[in-house]
């Protein structure tokens, strides 16, 4: 039984990580035509992304890709950082309100806050598009930010709520007992105590915003290509080896963000 379970474990990890490992491996494969055949180690695909001199012939690349790629990265970062800031602040405020005050329909309120998380992306995308058209709003970076905030606030709300639920209320009472006004208590006791939750929610929002394709696709309009949309566009012109390099870099970036989150959390304790 134990052998069977450990075999299952190996099989499971192979199933999840083999494709990712392949992408990383392919990104170093010198063969420009068939990725499946190893043709020696190269960094050319990375050099290509950054617009450096390579020995690659033009037929195996996405023509003129570097400036567009940079612009997409810039748009993605702008959108992700803005939405993270907005949704972290408002998600935290919502979580505090729902956790601290008793009001009628609090349960319904909580449930409604969860809905954007389980709503199919395609439905949310269409709904947002129709909404923006109805109120006469031109699709722009602003509409992407608004669209992302509508569901990312829910993610922050859930992460912060979990943290708040673990917080001993008597700590806030102790603060008041020692003379701190409600605002001082929030700044000196509540906020530092829930900081790991707020940070976790923020990082989650950042990664999801960076990564979102479906909803963004509907509400981006022209000229506001985010990185996922740009990659999607590249893929429609066939799978070329440099896509592996981009994917590997994205993977590295995500791991770095997650590691940063873990590091900040461990420093909290």
């Amino acid at each position: 039984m134990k052998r069977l379970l450990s075999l299952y474990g190996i099989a499971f990890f192979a199933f999840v990580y083999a494709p990712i490992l392949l992408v990383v491996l392919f990104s170093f494969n010198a063969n420009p035509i068939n990725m499946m055949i190893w043709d020696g180690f190269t960094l050319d695909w990375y050099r290509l992304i950054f617009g450096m001199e390579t020995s690659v012939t033009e037929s195996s690349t996405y023509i003129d890709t570097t400036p567009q790629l940079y612009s997409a990265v810039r748009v993605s970062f702008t959108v992700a950082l803005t939405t993270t800031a907005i949704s972290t602040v408002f998600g935290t405020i919502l979580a505090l309100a729902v956790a601290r005050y008793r009001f009628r329909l609090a349960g319904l309120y909580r449930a409604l806050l969860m809905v954007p998380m389980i709503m199919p992306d395609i439905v949310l995308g269409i709904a947002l598009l129709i909404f923006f058209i109805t109120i006469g709003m031109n699709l722009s970076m602003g509409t992407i930010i608004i669209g992302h905030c509508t569901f990312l606030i829910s993610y922050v709300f859930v992460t912060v709520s979990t943290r708040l639920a673990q917080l001993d209320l008597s700590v806030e009472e102790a603060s008041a007992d020692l003379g701190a006004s409600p605002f001082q208590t929030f700044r000196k006791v509540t906020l530092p105590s829930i900081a790991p939750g707020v940070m976790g929610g923020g990082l989650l929002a950042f990664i999801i915003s960076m990564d979102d394709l479906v909803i963004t696709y509907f509400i981006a309009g022209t000229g506001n290509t985010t990185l996922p949309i740009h990659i999607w566009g590249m893929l429609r012109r066939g799978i070329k080896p440099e896509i592996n390099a981009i994917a590997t870099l994205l993977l590295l970036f995500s791991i770095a963000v997650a590691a940063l989150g873990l590091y900040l959390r461990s420093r909290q304790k």
Partner: protein
Amino acid sequence: MDTDQNRAVTRTFSLRGLTSSPFERGRTRQTDDVSGFNMPAPLEIIGAHKAFRSPEGATVTALDNVSVKLAQAEFMTLLGPSGCGKTTLLRTISGFETLDAGDILIDGKEVTNQPAFRRPVNTVFQRYALFDHMNVARNVGYALEIAGKSKRDIQARVGEMLELVGLEGLGQRNISQLSGGQQQRVALARALAAKPKLLLLDEPLSALDKNLRQKMQQELKTLQRELGIGFIFVTHDQEEALTMSDRIAVLANGKIQQLGAPDALYTKPANLFTADFLGESNLLPVAIERGVATLADGQNFPCSNESAKGTLLLRPEVLRRTAPSEPSLTVQGTVVASYYQGKDCLVDFESPSLGALKANLREFKSLPERGETVSFYASTSDLHVINEVSS
């Protein structure tokens, strides 16, 4: 208020360089009021009433017309079973609950509708409620930090407080690095740092093991005497209450059943609840007529109670195996069980006329055996009759 001069004056009056504001206040008052009689009580509660709505929709009365006045530098314990209203009473003093009716005065000033953070009282919480994200020194100095004191003043006071509770040099530790007993001391130091007029303690020792608990009981009592401020101590542990208090308020069903010194409460309880709650007791119904109380088995003794019926409180430890020379009651019975406990011996026995009884023998040559017939004597001066009959 916290000038060096002021501190130098008071230093001679309190131990270990500690100053407490009620003490300072007391001294300044005494110059214009020699008798000191007009000093306001540290705490006065008048006609406090508080009701809660239970989740089932029923109204639960937590405080029912409670009035109590604390004397200067008094250690008062609120004692009672869980749900008796003692914690609610404490929380209305600290300001976490508001009264439905009644008034609260702290140091002569009405605070009934003041929020907790404006009241000059501090609390030691049941599970300490320390700030995990701050080190020991910042926890202890929190009230001073909030009050906007200078870093130097805070540092000095924190040092004093850590020394007071025996945690010198642990200021830079994290809370999670401390034992339960040490956390308890940090909570105490934190609550005392701002020199409160009154310290509230909500079952602070309930999480400690027995030895540490007894040690802390003595330390707390000593500390209270040194500081000369009022302590309101909530507990459900009657031994703790008897050991530490100047006065005990026994609470049940939101009412103060009896308020008095520990020995008075123990030997002369006013009602059956107090008699039963404090210590072990044998409660026997008596009929009273013209100054004589008669037991079910016909024995009688002088009794000054006015009522026609009453209950005799016979503490297990007043029963002895040898007949005293003064007038006494005799109870006979068959031993059901006996327990050796080192310095004393507990005997459960069954009297044919009075039912199941308990005796606590301090002097005994041999343990009475199960089935043995025994006689116990209680001198009539050790008897106390309560004007209440159990239903």
